[in-house]
């Protein structure tokens, strides 16, 4: 579903990008000197980009772009967004360039301007280590294979799917594809050969049985007609890296002799991954906390509007609630982070997009909780207060709302917990929350189950603590 949405989005947004005309031309490195460029990349494309044991983004792409930046005298700020998200961000000018093991294709050239190729790739098929049935494409008849959405592997797999009579199920991340194959839900994976080779060397549980299909050169991309100086500087820097041997060193570092994976214990995994996960937990907590405050403000306003006598005021609130309750959270995350910036031309901070997404969605539910809470207070309470000469507002404030809140508290605590868990969906726009950090880790080490287990335990403990805290506050303030 996510993949489908992104695919549609890329078509739509791609068309917009293609309409923009080309202007400006490169003028050498003096044009980029001292500037900082935001570079988008994939989250999980080892050995091109992945996080090392210290949680730092590393890989061939990262080393190349950093070396070029150093040579040309500019600075880079890397945003690890995911492949599709990075391209969306490029189209919406949220990033200046993308380097993500991206093949240069004619379709993409319509939308983006590419550098000289910096890597000659190719697609290869891999199967589970213990699978001796699949020895070639002929054995795929009637089976399902997997490939990465929008990547060369998918294009190639689909091009031969008819001939060999198999189905292609596309996923967003290499690690997920490998899990799909190991779990038997797909018999084979088509992925870029260096990625497969690196994964196999890391003991990801796969093996290759067919030869690499040559093709696909990787390029660095900028939005069509934008950042021509950056593109020229990249080409210039890349040529220098190739000339002085630095380029070969980088490739050798990751492909020459893939470090045989040293299996580590669960406790070592826990120890090495905990700092990154706790950083994610912090972001999860902070974004949930801010969003809940905003959701309460929105929800209180909308909840009171729902019981207003004015039909227009009521209508506005009902529409708001229906829209945000009736549409997926994920859609709004994409809308705020990718859609709105393209409509307005203004980039949006990821925290703003994240808080908008969570608080508007939750605000709709809070509005219903508030409405229900107020309506559950005996109408005689309002009458008694009004008959004392207190106005509607004062009566609400002093008599109805305090009682309504008491009844609302359990539902509000529930909503807070749902929000904390829902914040994991923000990983789709590259928000570095807890589950996102977990993905980063297993994308590099392929220890999906153990990493997810640790992430799950952290979520569980966080939710339990939050529940205890909220119940304590409830008892304290709602005597």
């Amino acid at each position, binding site marked *: 579903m996510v993949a489908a949405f992104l695919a549609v989005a890329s078509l739509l947004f791609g068309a917009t990008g293609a309409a923009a005309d080309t202007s400006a031309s490169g003028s050498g490195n003096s044009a980029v000197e001292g500037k900082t460029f935001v570079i988008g990349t994939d989250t999980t494309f080892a050995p091109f980009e992945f996080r090392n044991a210290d949680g730092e983004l590393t890989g061939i792409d990262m080393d190349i772009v950093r070396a070029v930046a150093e040579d040309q005298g500019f600075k880079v700020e890397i945003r690890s967004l995911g492949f599709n998200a990075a391209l969306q961000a490029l189209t919406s000018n949220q990033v200046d360039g993308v380097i993500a093991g991206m093949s240069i294709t004619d379709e993409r050239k319509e939308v983006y301007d590419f550098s000289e190729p910096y890597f000659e790739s190719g697609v290869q098929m891999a199967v589970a280590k213990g699978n001796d049935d699949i020895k070639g494409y002929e054995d795929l008849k009637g089976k399902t294979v997997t490939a990465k959405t929008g990547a060369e592997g998918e294009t190639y797999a689909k091009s031969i799917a008819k001939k060999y009579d198999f189905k292609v199920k596309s996923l967003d991340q290499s690690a997920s594809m490998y899990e799909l194959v190991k779990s038997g839900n797909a018999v084979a994976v088509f992925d870029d050969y260096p990625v497969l080779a690196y994964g196999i060397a890391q003991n990801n549980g796969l093996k290759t049985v067919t030869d690499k299909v040559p093709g696909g050169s990787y390029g660095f991309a900028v939005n069509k007609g934008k950042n021509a100086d950056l593109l020229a500087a990249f080409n210039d820097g890349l040529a220098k890296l190739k000339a002085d041997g630095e380029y070969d060193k980088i490739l050798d570092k990751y492909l020459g002799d893939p470090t045989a994976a040293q299996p580590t214990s669960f406790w070592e995994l826990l120890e090495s991954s905990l700092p990154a996960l706790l950083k994610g937990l912090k972001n999860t907590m902070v974004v949930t906390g801010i969003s809940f405050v905003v959701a309460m403000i929105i929800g209180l306003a909308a909840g009171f509007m729902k019981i207003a006598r004015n039909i227009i005021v009521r209508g506005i609130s009902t529409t708001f609630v229906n829209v945000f309750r009736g549409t997926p959270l994920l859609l709004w995350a994409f809308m705020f982070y990718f859609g709105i910036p393209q409509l307005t031309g203004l980039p949006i901070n990821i925290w703003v997009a994240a808080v908008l997404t969570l608080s508007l969605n939750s605000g709709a539910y809070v509005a219903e909780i508030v409405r229900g809470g107020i309506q559950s207070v*005996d109408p*005689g*309470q309002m*009458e*008694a*207060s*009004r*008959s*004392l*000469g*207190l*106005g509607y507002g*004062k009566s609400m404030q*002093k*008599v109805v709302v*305090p*009682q309504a809140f*008491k009844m609302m508290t359990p539902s509000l605590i529930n909503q807070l917990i749902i929000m904390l868990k829902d914040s994991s969906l923000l990983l789709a726009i590259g928000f570095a929350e807890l589950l996102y950090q977990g993905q980063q880790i297993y994308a590099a080490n392929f220890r999906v189950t153990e990493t997810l287990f640790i992430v799950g335990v952290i979520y569980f403990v966080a939710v339990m603590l939050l529940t205890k805290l909220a119940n304590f506050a409830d008892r304290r303030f709602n005597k």
Partner: protein
Amino acid sequence: MSASTTETARKLMIEVRGLRKSFGSNEVLQGIDAEVAEGEVVCVIGPSGSGKSTFLRCLNKLEDISGGTVVVDGFDLTDPKVDINDVRRHIGMVFQHFNLFPHMTVAENVMLAPVELKKASKAEGREKAMELLTRVGLAEKANARPAALSGGQKQRVAIARALAMNPGIMLFDEATSALDPEMVGEVLQVIRDLANSGMTLVLVTHEMGFAREVGDRVIFMADGVVCEEGTPEQLFNDPQQERTKEFLSKVL
């Protein structure tokens, strides 16, 4: 009351002319005319569904008025320029189900209106509340929550709360109907004291004995109109209307 000898010379506290009230297509009040003089105690009796509670609730505009005029203490309630909140400060109301605020203590219930309406500081409000609670015999419950009180105690607190703004008129909407029989007496005693203090009271009640005892005048309502009215002696001992006789034969 025996003291009320010069009825006509006294100021009218409530003047109702042609009062109509409909809920949708159902006309509950079909043209009521009534007057209540200052210091008078008027009891409204009648069968269920006769409109007596609705009539009472129109006197402080808890119900919107569909037609006619209601003038209370000089304020015309049907005049849109009249601030209903101002009028309500002159009228205390006591409900069948007490409607105490459960999230406040007894004293806080009583002092809410004076303090929120800036008639008293918190200290003054509390002092006044203690005075009123003493008057209804519940000073020792000042810091209790309503949930800890018996029904009779709750209603006495509700009366103290309604008195907090020093109203000229008190309205009682079946104030003893929700009480256990043994608690009716204590509440009636408080109302009796109010009546004896010379306050203007309008009571919707099912306590015929009490109406006869404290009422200066009794209004019998049936089917949305005033069927008959008069002194308790006239109405209870010598009813003129068939409808009145029929009702009294059932309840006496």
